[in-house]
């Protein structure tokens, strides 16, 4: 349709046109974007309750699911060990998945992942510093983690805005790797210098949810909730910034304020998640990637499946971590890296990194 049919244009625009048939498409995609992750979440959640690295197998576990505690050992495994850790894994996954989607929108880079860009490393270094200085990880941990994440996030977003770094998705990842490496060696130094805290510190080099209980979750709940609220508030302006900052400003948004709010939200979410589970990488890369495939690039839509797929990935990785080296467990952060690294390679090797 080229120039022409101008007669039935603007001035006659008052007549309501027939319902646009294309409009049902987004609705259907959105339904799939919720249904598929919910089904996967139910599956992985059940697997997480039933499968362990120890002696209580799926069949014994299954009999205890209705409750009743006829088999005390199985009941303990299902409801006191696997239950809380599943819940922790879900919350951590939701936080990392949505934070990844938001960070990618701010950096306009599909490879911007909190773990890759040094945000998680910032958070864990914050906690390690508190421990090394003699503080209590339980009470000060969340604050230190959020603060560290904020610094890491500002560095990442600052780098993304540098000419020559921001325009090339891979260079930003390199800059992030450099920051992560720097922070990682700082953590290692603290670990070497202070033998006393070595055991406590080691957890912060590779994350995991084993043995994490609901109390740890309660400590970081305020940070996570605040992060989630900020993310909801900033979702619309952030989605418009995908059209370029002048266009977003033309739509009545304030890009600078939106960017800052999003950075704080990401810091709260990643800092909170890291304070509970340590640094867990690649979740924020894999999850938004899958979410975009389900519902398209609009951030407001991407956040919904991200919120659901984050828990799927972390819970699934946690189940795998129990099975790889039975009767021991592989650290969760190692498993997510095993899943995520190939995805990163595939995305990076694609002829063209998709524009965000």
């Amino acid at each position, binding site marked *: *349709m*080229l*120039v*022409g*049919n*101008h007669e*039935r*244009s*603007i*001035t006659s*625009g*008052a007549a*309501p*046109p027939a319902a*646009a*048939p*294309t*409009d049902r*498409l*987004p609705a259907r995609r959105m339904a799939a974007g919720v249904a598929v992750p919910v089904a996967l979440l139910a599956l992985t959640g059940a697997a997480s309750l039933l499968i362990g690295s120890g002696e209580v197998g799926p069949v014994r576990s299954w009999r205890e699911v209705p409750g009743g505690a006829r088999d005390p050992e199985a009941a303990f495994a299902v409801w006191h060990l696997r239950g809380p850790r599943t819940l922790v894994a879900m919350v951590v996954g939701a936080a990392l998945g949505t934070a990844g989607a938001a960070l990618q929108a701010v950096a306009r880079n599909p490879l911007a992942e909190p773990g890759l860009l040094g945000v998680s490393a910032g958070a864990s270094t914050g906690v390690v510093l508190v421990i090394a200085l003699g503080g209590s990880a339980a009470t000060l941990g969340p604050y230190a983690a959020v603060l560290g994440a904020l610094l890491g996030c500002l560095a990442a977003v600052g780098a993304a805005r540098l000419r020559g770094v921001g325009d090339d998705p891979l260079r930003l990842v390199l800059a992030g790797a450099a920051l992560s490496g720097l922070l990682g060696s700082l953590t290692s130094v603290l670990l070497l210098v202070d033998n006393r805290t070595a055991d406590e510190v080691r957890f912060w080099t590779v994350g995991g949810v084993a043995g994490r209980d609901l109390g740890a979750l309660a400590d970081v709940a305020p940070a996570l909730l605040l992060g989630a609220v900020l993310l909801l*508030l900033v979702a*619309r302006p952030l*989605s*418009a910034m*995908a*059209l*370029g900052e*002048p*266009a977003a*400003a*033309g*739509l*009545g*948004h*304030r890009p600078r304020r939106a960017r800052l709010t999003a950075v704080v939200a990401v810091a709260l979410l990643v800092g909170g998640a890291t304070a509970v589970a340590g640094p867990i990488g690649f979740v924020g890369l894999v999850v938004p990637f899958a979410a*975009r495939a389900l519902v*398209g*690039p*609009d951030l407001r839509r991407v956040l919904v499946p991200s919120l659901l797929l984050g828990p799927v990935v972390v819970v699934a990785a946690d189940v795998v971590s129990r099975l790889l080296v039975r009767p021991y467990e592989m650290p969760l952060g190692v498993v997510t890296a095993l899943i995520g690294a190939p995805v990163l390679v595939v995305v990076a090797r694609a002829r063209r990194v*998709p*524009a*965000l």
Partner: protein
Amino acid sequence: MTPPATPPSAQAADPSAVLRADGVTLAHGQAIAVDTIRLAPPPGRLTAVVGPNGCGKSTLLAGLSRLHRPAGGTVLLDGRDLARLPAREAARRIGLLPQSAQAPDGLTVADLVRFGRQPHQGLLRQWSPQDQQAVDRALTATGMTALAGRLLETLSGGQRQRAWIALTVAQETAVLLLDEPTSALDLGHQLEVFELLRELAAAGRTVVVVVHDLMLACRYADHLVAMKAGRMVAEGAPREVVTPELIRRLYGVEAGVLRDPDTDRPLVVPRGLAP
């Protein structure tokens, strides 16, 4: 220097707003890009801003659209200082198509046009039937209804540009500002865009377009603004202001100015660089 009379307001589909630059100076740091410009683009007309590269025409548009805060003077929207208007309220009355407009992969035309409703939405006011109607109207007005479900990256340059214009139309603003909407398009697609802009103006909007191509401006503009080195050097109907002297002054080019026998509009025929 007086703008032509405004058309009968009865034609206007929207309440027309009056946008006025009152001695506006815009600076990039210390460098002054736009120097005390006085401009009142007439409602219901297509105003084209022309001038050589770096003359400040894009900066002027950024100033008119609130993106660039004036270092001096004021931009007035219906007599109110635009800089003091809340961002969202301004966006309900002034639509902007920036030059650098870019969309993420995987976005459909309808997805893009929906963004135009954001200034009308709020925390508690989510997507409404009115928003859907505005989007449908914008798609119809731009001839994009049949392409609504298509991915942007599968469209031709002209179609993609019309999709972006549809976004600003869905914004339902009385003022529409466009920065070089035809710069990357071939002749057919350029005309496609300008025919559309002329219609949008005819419906009562104040349309201001920064355009590189003097021939297009002469062909389509009701009102021409010529800028050089941050200053306005001519303003008025193309047939009145486009002269060999103006072309020489703007571009350093010797040119003949003929009349199109069909439209009575000026035709610029470049003959060589001015000595």
